[in-house]
């Protein structure tokens, strides 16, 4: 049932699953609070300590995980449509590393102290620069392999500069700040962090949604899409800016987290079909659900040190990427 009816079923279903996952993740933590306690804390009337734990600690964390995942899922779907390549992903293509580099630069030079929005904006600026560079270097004109190699080069370059920043880091506190960013985590997030990232999520998602007709036309390649009457310039700008803003927002709220942008659209395609316009919202919802689930799992695992979300995502996502790369048949025959 890979058609409109499919989407009409799966979108509400994915909203519902996201809701369930967020609720379950509110149940997990050092303080034992049952479902009744969680509901009481959420909707008032609960006792004070539980209420603060749920509202100030667990809810922002769960929502941050969901938001970061949704950003990456939507960005991945948009980039895959633009590059016409199921292996495109903000992490693989070097967009997330560039966003991390932006954030690291802001932290390193202590620019983050000027205003709370400097770091997220620096992340978004890094993501924009990387996406534009990638597009100029070869969207649609080069093979999958080369595109990914360009991304690998971009990632390595950003990684090298980040290493340089760590190498030259003046004090251990700055170093630990940097490392926390690079591992990727949503622990200790507040509603302020969410409030900062949410508008970027909304704006980025809106841009990609506006580009949907162009993405659909690009299924037949740039030449045909242009002849069909699609405004490719506009679609390109919207996707590049939208996916950069989304990636930047996810890096701003959760640090560097990879592979969600490739896995979520891949699953979305099996649910609602391959139409690149139709997978965007399901990809966002799936990305949110996947990262919420991952953040939930790392808190259940019996390790003394909590696993960082970015580490867990890579542990699950990297094999997922290999699976997609190995099984995807290229369609451009």
């Amino acid at each position, binding site marked *: 049932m*890979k*058609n*409109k009816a499919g989407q009409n079923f799966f979108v509400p279903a994915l909203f519902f699953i996201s809701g369930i996952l967020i609720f379950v993740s509110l149940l997990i933590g050092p303080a034992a609070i049952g479902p009744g306690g969680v509901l009481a804390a959420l909707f008032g009337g609960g006792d004070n300590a539980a209420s603060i734990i749920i509202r100030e600690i667990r809810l922002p964390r769960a929502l941050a995980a969901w938001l970061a995942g949704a950003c990456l899922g939507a960005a991945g779907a948009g980039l895959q449509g633009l590059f*016409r*390549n199921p292996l495109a992903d903000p992490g693989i293509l070097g967009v997330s590393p560039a966003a991390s580099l932006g954030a690291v630069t802001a932290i390193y030079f202590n620019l983050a102290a000027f205003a709370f929005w400097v770091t997220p904006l620096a992340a978004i600026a890094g993501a924009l620069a990387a996406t534009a560079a990638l597009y100029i270097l070869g969207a649609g004109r080069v093979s999958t392999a080369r595109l990914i190699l360009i991304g690998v080069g971009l990632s390595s370059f950003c990684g090298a500069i980040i290493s340089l920043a760590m190498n030259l880091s003046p004090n251990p506190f700055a170093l630990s700040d940097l490392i926390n960013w690079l591992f990727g985590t949503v622990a200790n997030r507040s509603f302020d962090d969410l409030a900062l990232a949410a508008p970027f999520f909304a704006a980025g998602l809106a841009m990609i949604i506006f580009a949907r*007709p162009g993405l*659909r*036309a*690009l*299924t*037949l*390649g740039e*030449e*045909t899409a*242009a*002849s*069909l*009457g*699609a*405004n490719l310039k506009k679609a390109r700008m919207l996707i590049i800016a939208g996916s950069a803003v989304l990636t930047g927002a996810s890096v701003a709220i959760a640090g560097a987290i990879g592979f969600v942008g490739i896995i979520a659209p891949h699953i979305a*395609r099996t649910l609602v*079909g*391959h*139409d*690149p*316009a*139709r997978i965007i919202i399901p990809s966002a919802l799936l990305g949110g659900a996947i990262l919420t689930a991952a953040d939930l799992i790392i808190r259940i695992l019996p390790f003394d040190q909590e696993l960082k979300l970015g580490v867990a995502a890579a542990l699950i996502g990297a094999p997922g990427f290999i699976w997609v790369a190995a099984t995807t*048949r290229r*369609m*451009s*025959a």
Partner: protein
Amino acid sequence: MTALLDLKDVSVSIDGRAIVRGASLAAAPGEFIGLIGPNGAGKSTLLRAAAGLIPIDCGARRLKGDRFEDIPFTERARRLAYLPQARPIFWSIPVRNIVALGRFAYGASDNLSDPAIDRAMAEAGVEGLAERPAAELSGGELARVHLARTLAAEAALILADEPITALDPAHQFSVMALLQQKAKQDCAIIAALHDLQLAEKYCTRLVIIDQGRIVADGPTTILNTKIARDVFSIKLQRETDSNAISLAPL
């Protein structure tokens, strides 16, 4: 009558190299024009320029009398449908969705119940494939699906770049017959072709291009021994009784 397409003295260069030099070509309803010429003669570039996909150095392009530059993208796509030589399908969407993209200029790229989609699929003979994903189609099926996508625009002018290349003989005949049929329904068709015998059999008019210049333009009889030798470097013989042509190396 106003020509559906009117190119006047069009020159196109790519990376500083002149590909099309001073080409003039007009197409009226009912014409099935075979654009023929050897590899690298400039057929595809001329068609791209005619479709408005690449800029021209000089000359004028008009669609139904209006200058190209004055026609918005979507209106252009309603007046002319273009079938490029390279026809990638990057995502395995169903045939109906591919054909629906032909309706893009009407803002209905995801309106799968647009009756024009069913009409185009029926004309191209792919109505039975409507729900099949692109990845499961054979070469011949794909060619007819692309044709259905092109027809779905219901544009009066169709530009097709090598529509029958890589098709088996039966599919070549059926595609040529379909284009001929569309011309009879008052469309104008310009198709870049390599098969001289099919071009001569189905087209109403031939335009011969060599090294970027249109060297001959007229009824199919202009394809004669001299043109075959000078332009295509082959030997052409016309049977006196059936008027059919046969080709051989020089």
